[in-house]
């Protein structure tokens, strides 16, 4: 004889059993689950974008210093979320570029760092043009690093910023390989993939990123590209700006003013 309680218990068990195959489907076709949660159609009103004016950058590296301290990337570790590159083009057509320590200490010598302890000094008269280019994560619209993460530990937040889940990352390094801009690395302490996230803890509180704030010359700006009145958004729409490595189809969201073809 089966009483009502046992019947209910068994019914629940049965339903749970049936739900199990659904869990399998969830991996394959999770859009359904997403729809069930009622989260579709809620598009974010914010899309963060960055603007770098390379004419203004003087290569002081205060942005790099601030970034490392703000985001707890060990100061002496040879990795960094943002860095500044120096390009020196000579009159005879040669291109020199370097970024010693990611320009954490700025550029306090005219000698170009050639690696392996070698340096090249370039005479003032030989210089055709020279400039600095700050680099950081492009927060791509189609981030290849996210596409290749095998476990869903890195993702694009609704406002376009690509974040890494430090508790879920397995540290395979595939995202580091997939990034055409070299912005990713392994965090020396957490031992997981690390990257610039536009100081997510700051921008979501209405603050500027640490690098934007630290820059004395206004070479770095951050804004919301979905807001037509945002100053950054206005410049990007109205002026001639370019992006890095657009041939990869990543649709990077860090825009540059004043870079030339030597910049990669």
């Amino acid at each position, binding site marked *: 004889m089966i009483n009502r309680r046992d019947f209910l218990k068994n019914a629940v068990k049965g339903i749970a059993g049936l739900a199990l195959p659904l869990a399998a489907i969830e991996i394959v076709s999770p859009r359904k689950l997403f729809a069930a949660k009622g989260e579709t159609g809620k598009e974010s009103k914010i899309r963060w974008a960055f603007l770098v004016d390379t004419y203004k950058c003087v290569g002081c590296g205060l942005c790099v210093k601030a970034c490392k301290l703000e985001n707890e990337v060990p100061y002496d570790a040879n990795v960094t979320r943002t860095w500044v590159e120096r390009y020196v083009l000579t009159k005879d057509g040669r291109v020199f570029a370097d970024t010693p320590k990611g320009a954490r200490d700025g550029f306090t010598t005219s000698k170009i760092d050639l*690696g392996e302890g070698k340096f090249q000094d370039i005479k003032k008269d030989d210089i055709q043009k020279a400039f600095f280019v700050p680099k950081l994560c492009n927060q791509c619209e189609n981030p290849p690093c996210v596409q290749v993460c095998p476990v869903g530990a890195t993702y694009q937040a609704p406002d376009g910023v690509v974040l890494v889940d430090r508790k879920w990352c397995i540290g*395979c390094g*595939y995202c580091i390989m997939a990034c055409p801009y070299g912005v990713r690395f392994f965090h020396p302490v957490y031992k997981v993939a690390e990257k610039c996230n536009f100081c997510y803890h700051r921008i979501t509180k209405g603050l500027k990123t640490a690098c934007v704030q630290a820059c004395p010359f206004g070479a770095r700006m951050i804004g919301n590209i979905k807001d037509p009145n945002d100053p950054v958004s206005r410049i990007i729409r109205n002026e001639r700006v370019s992006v890095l490595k657009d041939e990869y189809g990543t649709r990077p969201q860090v825009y540059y003013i004043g870079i030339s073809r030597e910049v990669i």
Partner: protein
Amino acid sequence: MVHGEAWTVKELFVTPNEYIYWSVQIVMYPFMTGLVAGAFVLSSLYHVFGIKQLKEIARFALVFSLALLPVAMMPLQLHLQQPQRGIEVFLTPHFTSAIAAFGIVFSTYGAIVASEIWFVYRKYIVETALALRNKADKSTGEKIYHLIFSLLTLGSYDISEKALHQDEKAVKILAGIGIPVACFLHGYAGFIFGSVKANALWMTPLMPVIFIMSAVVSGIALCMLTYIVVMEIRKFLAARKKTTYETYESTEEIKGIEINVIKMTAKYLLFFLIFAISLELLDLIFRGYTAVKTWDILRSVIYGKDFLDIFVFQYGIGNLLPFILFLLPGLTIRRTVVGVLLVLFGVFMMRWNVVIGGQSFSLTFAGFMHYHLPIIPHDIETFKEGLFGALLVIITPFVLFWGLNKIFPVFIKEVH
């Protein structure tokens, strides 16, 4: 210290975060997967296409590919920064990632190999289990054996003529499914590299096919090598009349079988080797001819920095030399051993030149990175991703094979 800093030396313009993140273990990984796939394809040549001459090596190759299977995962585990989280690849797989899809394909493949072995050895398993069951006063070892074999029967003791016929059919079907899955498996390893658009050297649709071909080459070569080693040991034992196997009586018989099997297998090795080299050269020529933006840096890597590794070690010593050795008439066992060792070396160098070579130039296309394999480990990282870590990966399949051979003896007459 930052991961990668211990073995990377930078030259010219390299961005701060660039290191050789994928080191020797990622060289080992496609190399070992390749051996698995290759060994399986070799065994399937007999089971599916009924190439009788390969009968002797087929069963051997099958068990060997099972021994290699867990080892293909090992380098991945060793290179993960968070190895304890590796299981997440099965928990929350992200199918747009080649690595996650690889996990699924790999497991499927493992299931196929294990099932096929089960069918091949079922009669033996049941007989052993029954014999052990009926034996009075078993020793502890025999008790454990009995437990293992009872579990391995999966509860089926039916070894009637009809049931064995079904087994045979199942083996054929599994081997048939196994070939595309093995190719897919290794193609995927190639896809993991070939689909990285950020890497100028890796990104080519040919990568999966090149990987499959060289995988089969290396798998056959390793099977031949191990086969020869095992046969030599047995010859030695037969000569001293100490053999516990009851298969062959005399040294002469073993010798005759050995050279026949080797000659036959060598032909298939050459066939796949030609395929592999043609594809690799096609890739190289195509890159040079089309000469897109990245060709400048690639050329300086291929013809400059890595010339020795690519043209001398890989193509010269690893491909051309064994090619000649196998083609010269009157193939002997000794020559074969040298040949297959060189082939294995060549395939290893190919993996090396892809994995390390692909990371030896900067994303700026204006700088280089040099890899220095850590020899003497001074911390866990330089052990895992150093010479000793790699050696560990190389040795493990042989240990596993030795263990597996206790349960699935490779040399018993008339198993199948």
